């Protein structure tokens, strides 16, 4: 398996909402088995970028490719099938279904499509992976906050994605939960998954990411290892400037 060819690459990706440029001419690559952190102050266009990749929004211009195949004009479900799976900034579960069925949704319709007993065992495996296998038949309403996040993660994993997009997956967790969360993602990294992580929690970024892209006002302002970018003066300025109106 070639590791030098990027799994996911963005070239000049741009999104305009009327006059507002939310994402401006963005380039970056995500290599196989790499955890890429997408960071930047609030409103810098990180989530919009994830939306472009996952197909929630079509880009105004520019290209997005998955293993060299352009996906920028595909609808979300096609992109999901090609192997890009995402979580949502605010957890979205399927409220009328059990935990297991939530995860089954990913197993049945995702990148690798399973059905019947195979889908169920796979879903259970994913639940075990996130540490929820004992609550498989619980109702989603009974779960704690972190457990809902785990379910969502398991659903996404169940589709065997090529690229995993995690949108502030660690946000809102208390310190203990945060620790568990980071450990969970580290385990995924160690399994060799390719992950794009939009995150605010700096500890997580430092300990999890192989590479980082820093965005400000829709544009990339820095790229490199976490230590490199977090010491970049422009990045610091961007964050500090953000602090003023935060």
């Amino acid at each position, binding site marked *: 398996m070639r590791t030098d060819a990027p799994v996911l690459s963005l070239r000049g990706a741009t999104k305009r909402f009327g006059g507002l440029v939310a994402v401006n001419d963005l380039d970056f690559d995500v290599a196989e088995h790499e955890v890429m952190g997408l960071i930047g102050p609030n409103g810098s266009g990180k989530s919009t970028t994830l939306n472009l990749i996952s197909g*929630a929004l079509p880009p105004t211009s520019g290209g997005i490719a998955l293993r060299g195949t352009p996906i920028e004009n595909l609808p979300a479900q096609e992109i*999901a099938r090609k192997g890009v799976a995402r979580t949502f900034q605010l957890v979205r579960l399927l409220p009328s279904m059990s935990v297991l069925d939530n995860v089954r949704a990913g197993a049945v319709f995702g990148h690798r499509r399973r059905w019947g007993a195979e889908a169920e065992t796979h879903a259970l495996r994913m639940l075990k992976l996130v540490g929820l296998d004992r609550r498989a038949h619980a109702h989603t309403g009974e779960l704690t906050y972190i457990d809902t996040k785990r379910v969502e993660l398991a659903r996404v994993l169940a589709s065997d994605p090529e690229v995993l997009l995690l949108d502030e997956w660690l946000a809102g967790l208390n310190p203990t939960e945060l620790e568990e969360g980071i450990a969970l993602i580290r385990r995924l990294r160690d399994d060799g998954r390719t992950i794009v992580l939009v995150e605010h929690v700096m500890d997580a970024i430092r300990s999890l990411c192989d590479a980082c892209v820093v965005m400000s006002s829709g544009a990339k302002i820095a790229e490199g290892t976490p230590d490199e970018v977090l010491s970049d003066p422009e990045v610091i300025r961007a964050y500090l400037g953000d602090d003023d109106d935060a």
Partner: protein
Amino acid sequence: MIRADGRTLALVALVLAVAACLPLTGSAYWLSLGISIAMYTVLTTSWALFSGPTHYISLATAAFFGVGSYTTGIGIEYLPYWALPPIAGVLGAVMAALVGLATLRLSGVYFVIFTLGLAELVRQVIIWFQNISGQKGIYVLTKITEAQIFWQLLGLAALVYAAGWAIGRSRLGFALRIIGDDEEVARHSGINTARAKVALFMVSGAAAAVVGAVLAPRFVYIEPSTAFTPMLSFQVVIMALLGGTGRLWGPLVGVIPFTFLWEAISASFPNQTTLLLGVSFLVIVYLLPRGFVGLIEGTRRRMRAREAFA
């Protein structure tokens, strides 16, 4: 789960078999009630196949039903009767596909009223066409008996149940449940939401059109105002909602009591039929907020709870 389904299936088959004997009793009265029940069972169940999981309330039933009636009404001059219901089904499905594709962006009440407008549009176009083509009144003079119509409807009901059961067990059914919960998640899980919704809408459109085609001989004379009556669309929605759309058998438990209630009121209070129907309606809405399914499941849960404590 699967065993429970098997039992339900067996039960349904048994009920259908018993129902099929109804014409043998020779009672025209029960047969005519049976036709009402069978007709509304097909219409509401197929309606709920689409609307139950997606929560889209469609008022287009009358449009499909009317197209079906006209298929028989016009086609009977040229083709043998048995060929017509399938043709009506195909027409209904095609129409539903077109409508489905056109309405994907609409949400909530906009979809509701859109389907209503659509039904009226189809009716107006057909009337206009009938007028310019100089087609005189449409007569369906056949030797088809009430019993035959009843059996056809029962067969159709069996088909709809089988389809519903199969869909519920299929990827499509699972996809629809996901769509009903969160369409965004569905799309990002790799579900082609448009295709799933249109597919189901086609099933319900085809079923309604076939019902229209099957019932046309019963009416002998087809008029636009009765073939396309908007009241039918409303009645289907109401009965299905009264029953409950969460279960395949939900609409049926709405249809049966409703038909008997309707019959009882029509028979006993000919001058206040409308008034009393309205009143009983309100009573149901206020006392049974979750439909008959809610009532049944609530009772069952209470009984189980009592057993558990006993």
